[in-house]
């Protein structure tokens, strides 16, 4: 079965579940069968969160297999590293580089891998890796709250789907008064990785 498989990772509270919901719905709207599966656990208390999203003509399992992940969309660098074993040699990675220290690090029991080491691993792991500081960009255009929409904008430029579909799906989930800001965030993200904005 020919499917496109995504892994979305992050930390509870970052909006990664919403992002994976959007990604799955974009797939459906683009004409694919789409499925997704979340692993939450106690994520609301700051744990790791991950979702699998799959697009295809017909998707059976909501969970992809090791080595099947074509795209890794990571909202946090350490969580990006956790996703690496599921990738293959030509996987494409987009990582938000702002770290969130887990309690094991802030309490001094463990150390957070240095940023250049993370880039080295992600850069070699698959076919291509892109790094952005989405939070900083989001603050620059008006609010840290649009960080994940900005991430999705950047991610959308890596996929061959009409940006109008992305915009529709994203803006339908946003309160009326925040529509303009989110549209700006989406296009800002898109331009970051060289996508057209139409």
């Amino acid at each position: 079965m020919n499917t496109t498989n995504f892994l979305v990772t992050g930390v509870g509270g970052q909006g990664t579940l919403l992002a994976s919901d959007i990604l799955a719905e974009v797939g459906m709207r683009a004409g694919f069968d789409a499925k997704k599966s979340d692993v939450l656990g106690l994520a609301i208390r700051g744990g790791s969160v991950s979702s699998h999203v799959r697009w295809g003509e017909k998707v059976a399992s909501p969970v992809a297999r090791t080595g099947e992940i074509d795209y890794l969309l990571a909202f946090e660098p350490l969580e990006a590293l956790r996703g690496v074993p599921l990738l293959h040699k030509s996987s494409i990675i987009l990582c938000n580089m702002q770290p969130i220290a887990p309690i094991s690090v802030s309490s001094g029991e463990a150390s957070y891998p240095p940023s250049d080491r993370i880039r080295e691993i992600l850069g070699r792991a698959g076919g291509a890796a892109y790094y952005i500081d989405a939070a900083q960009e989001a603050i620059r255009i008006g609010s840290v709250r649009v960080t994940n929409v900005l991430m999705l904008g950047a991610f959308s430029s890596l996929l061959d789907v009409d940006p109008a579909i992305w915009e529709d799906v994203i803006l339908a989930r946003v309160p009326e008064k925040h529509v303009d800001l989110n549209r700006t965030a989406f296009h800002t993200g898109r331009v970051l990785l060289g996508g057209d904005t139409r």
Partner: protein
Amino acid sequence: MTQRLLSGNEAIARGAYEAGVQVVTGYPGTPSSEILEVIAAQYGREIYAEWSANEKVAMDAAAGAAYSGRRTLVTTKQVGMNVLADALLYTVYTGAEAGLVVVTADDPGMFSSQNEQDNRWYARLGKIPLLEPADSQEAKDFVIAAFELAEQFDTPVLIRTTMRVSHSKSVVIEGARASVPEKVGPFVRNQTKYVCTAMWAKKRHPIVEQRLIDLADYADRASFNRVEPGDRALGIITSGVTYTYVKEVFPDASVLKLGMTFPLPKQMIRAFVDSVDQVLVVEELDPFLEEQVRAMGIPVIGKDLFPACDELLPDTLARLASEAGLIDAPASNPPNVEALPDLPPRTPVLCAGCPHRSTYYWLAKMKVPVAGDIGCYNLGCLPPFNAQHTMGCMGASIGVLHGMAIAGMPERAVATIGDSTFFHSGMPALANMVHNRGRGVSIIMDNGTTAMTGHQDHPGTSWSLHDSDAPHIAIEPLVRALGVKKVRSVNAFTMQEVKDGLDDCLAYDGPSVLLVQGLCVQISKPDAPSHLVDSAACIACGTCFRLGCPAIVKSSDVVEKTGRAKAEIDPIQCVGCDMCRQVCPASAICDPRQSQAGAR
């Protein structure tokens, strides 16, 4: 025809709506909670929805609603079925005037549960028809079909999902709502059917047995079950989400896809088995299908190959099947990484501003035995507290505490239990402790909500799913009414008060209650400014780190003599709860509001 991407839980909610369900009850529990929440939020005008005090109350209320002629749904997580079962099993004998369906959401992999029990056994134990949807479309369709089945055979019906069905999304085609009775009543007075006293229940039992035979016959004709013909060398019997994994891993095999897994369609199984060379039963957790198929005299490969523990994800399935020579080894194209560094774990922690923190800080210091319970506060078992020594099920803490005392354990011990859990099943244990002259401190940690499962209401909250001004029960007069003589109420955010309350209760020789009150930070959303550490004053003693607050981090500033890191507060995470300022022995932590006032 609307096509939407729904989670299994959202699809069950939609199915209830389309089936003409009018009453839904349940107690929150992952991975089941969203069903009732979605019903209340999206279909609250058409469907009465309530969070009941516990699963048994939910089931009794559901029975009463179904006896009254309303189609009724009950939702629970897998371990909630143990609480609910007493009530469910009498409805097997009584049947009802309208459809009665129970959804149990199981948790293979134990993402948020204390065990990995397989609730399909309840179908056999209770002699209840069982449906297992594989995806969201089936979840919706099976709910509608379950109500028809329930009414056709006058039986409760069990629908069993697993976390991967409940929390996965797939495409669902929506339909219209069935017509519903506007009025009900008068209440049917059919004593020989609805009063399960021995003389009448004895006459109901043969009806239940005959119903099972009829249901087995129905299963052979039901559209829930289907054969997907393929390569005859290998035939796979499977159900639930595991079916979707089978389709990935064995794309060419013949598959008998069971949607109704109790009673089994025996003729269909025999015909399928005869059509293939080798039979594999692929199921997560227990050999529920396998044992029944083996009992038919059919040799199969099942749990001798696939484990009974954990999820049976496509990766595991493919690895074991290829090791057994059933399929070729999956192609491998691993990423260009020799070895990852050791990645620091990201375990869940009590939130910054959590009211439970003060209690566990002192319990860790006092080193008393702690009987724990189910809720966010179970995180008190982890570092830096390590202050919880038992935890088993909802409401267990007070009973376990009582057990320590009656066994003659000389140490003074405590139980920790949340407000929702106390109303769920802690109250009878406290009454029992009083009546039997027990001893021990029951710490009721009242954060004003059922926090862990997503902030649902309970009998102590001033709101409910259908009422913004709900009658609510205050815990302090309640425990006094239960006969507890020693009761202390303290503010969770005042460290010394919590300490004094604990000391006072621990010194008391009898049953006592320490009521620790403080709203869950997720619902109180405090707007206090974040606290600051005066680095010059910090002596790096580590006291504040023992609060286990994610906002208190080790700074790069080190005290030279000891080599220990000073503290620093992350202004984004800190909500100014003030506990750290109160425990700091060097007065190095300040609330910016107080220091400004001081400067003036």
